[in-house]
């Protein structure tokens, strides 16, 4: 998110404190001192991780500190699901399978564990997929379902999201 704060001591702390109060994790803070601001204001960009559904509360708390929120950027890849693939995964081009998710731009395969017992036997793989939000995750899973049908492997989906 992009914030507008007074160029005065203590202001940045005041803007950041609500994030940790809500159990969030600050990934990066970027000052933009070169950007000319009216009335001695300073633009700061914050990249953060926040538990789901807490964003509204955070914006309220930051505003209460007298800090103006200029823009809230898109949430990125914070929704995670593990799925299992079983079948002839290598012979059906596992790289392509992963790429079908990665090429969407809204979801990524971030982890892959594979077990290949013997050349004639089926492989089993655990894939961790990350997406920006629930809707994108559902789309990513839908893509994977189509790929599974096409390449004739079994897709085991989680019943509920697994953290």
């Amino acid at each position, binding site marked *: 998110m992009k914030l507008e704060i007074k160029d005065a001591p203590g202001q940045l702390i005041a803007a950041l404190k609500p994030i940790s109060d809500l159990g969030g994790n600050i990934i990066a803070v970027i000052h933009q001192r070169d950007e000319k601001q009216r009335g001695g204001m300073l633009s700061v960009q914050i990249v953060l991780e926040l538990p789901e559904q807490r964003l509204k509360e955070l914006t309220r708390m930051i505003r209460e500190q007298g800090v103006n929120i200029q823009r809230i950027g898109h949430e990125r890849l914070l929704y995670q699901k593990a*799925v299992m693939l079983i079948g002839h995964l290598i012979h059906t081009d596992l790289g392509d399978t992963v790429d079908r998710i990665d090429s969407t731009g809204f979801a990524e395969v971030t982890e892959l564990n594979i077990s290949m017992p013997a050349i004639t036997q089926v492989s089993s793989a655990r894939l961790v997929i990350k997406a920006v939000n629930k809707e994108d995750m559902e789309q990513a899973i839908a893509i994977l379902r189509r790929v599974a049908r096409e390449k004739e492997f079994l897709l085991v989906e*989680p019943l509920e999201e697994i953290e």
Partner: protein
Amino acid sequence: MRVAVLGMGSVGRGVLQMIEEKDLGISVTAVADSRSALINKDGISIDEVLEAKAKSGFCGDRSLTAMDVVRRAAYDVLIEVTPTNADTGEPALTHILSALEKGRHVVTSNKGPISREYSRIRSLAAAKGVQIRYEATVGGAIPIMHMLEHGLAGNRVLAVFGVLNGTCNFILSRMAAEGLTYEQALLEAREMGYAEADPTYDVKGIDPAIKLVILANTFCREPVTLEDVDITGIDLLTNDALRLAEEQHCTIRLIAEAIPDRGILRVAPRLLPLSHPLVVEGTLNAITIETDMAGEITLIGKGAGSVETASAIIGDLLYIRNFHAERHPKKT
């Protein structure tokens, strides 16, 4: 209350034994198996029938049939527990429709007719002012139908998730616990008597899909059929997959799922956290109901067995006696 029992398999025998043992005020006036029948309006001796069946394989007179019982015996409730035929629902379907037509209540464990011809059976029962009850068709001893219809009356059911097939659950539990292959676990299930010689019905997910259809027709407005269910079995699962799941504190179970608002009707192996209430061991069944008022409720219990299924049937019988007996036409 007088009952006629069709079917002398494990379920039928369990029901007869419990009626005999428990002094419930239920009199059995007729029984039939696939090749014989016994009718006595003053009540038959359950001990003698069970003994005859065990000795000769016949429960009664070989010149009489189940349909003779349906047509001619003096009963208030027909207990239809003959073997299930999922393709046609017969001969159970004819038994059930004929009894309803005569204005008799029906209690059944038979999934075939209930999953295939629910609307027809339900409307005939309504037209005749009698009850059709089928608690024993889903989840064995778990009183899921009573829960949906009475316990959660007034709630809107948003979703139902369940482990509805004990055979598959046993196989998956064993694969996870002992690192057995699918083939080894299936063999063990056969040896324990949990799997049929031809396990297709269970492991391909057809049996839980039929149960899901019965559940969905009980709580959804739109009628559904087996063809509407998206079915994936467990026969392609590997012990590697279960091990990979375990590394993430998860396991795999065959879950039947109905979410009417999203048009989801599916049976498939799914990943669940080990701490999830639906992760039950062995042949147990478990069902989670999600409703608007009550939130989530999970029931866990034995999904099969002679006396366990008898529990569901007797629950239905006593429900009819306590709440609907007066609606039965006058006896002569």
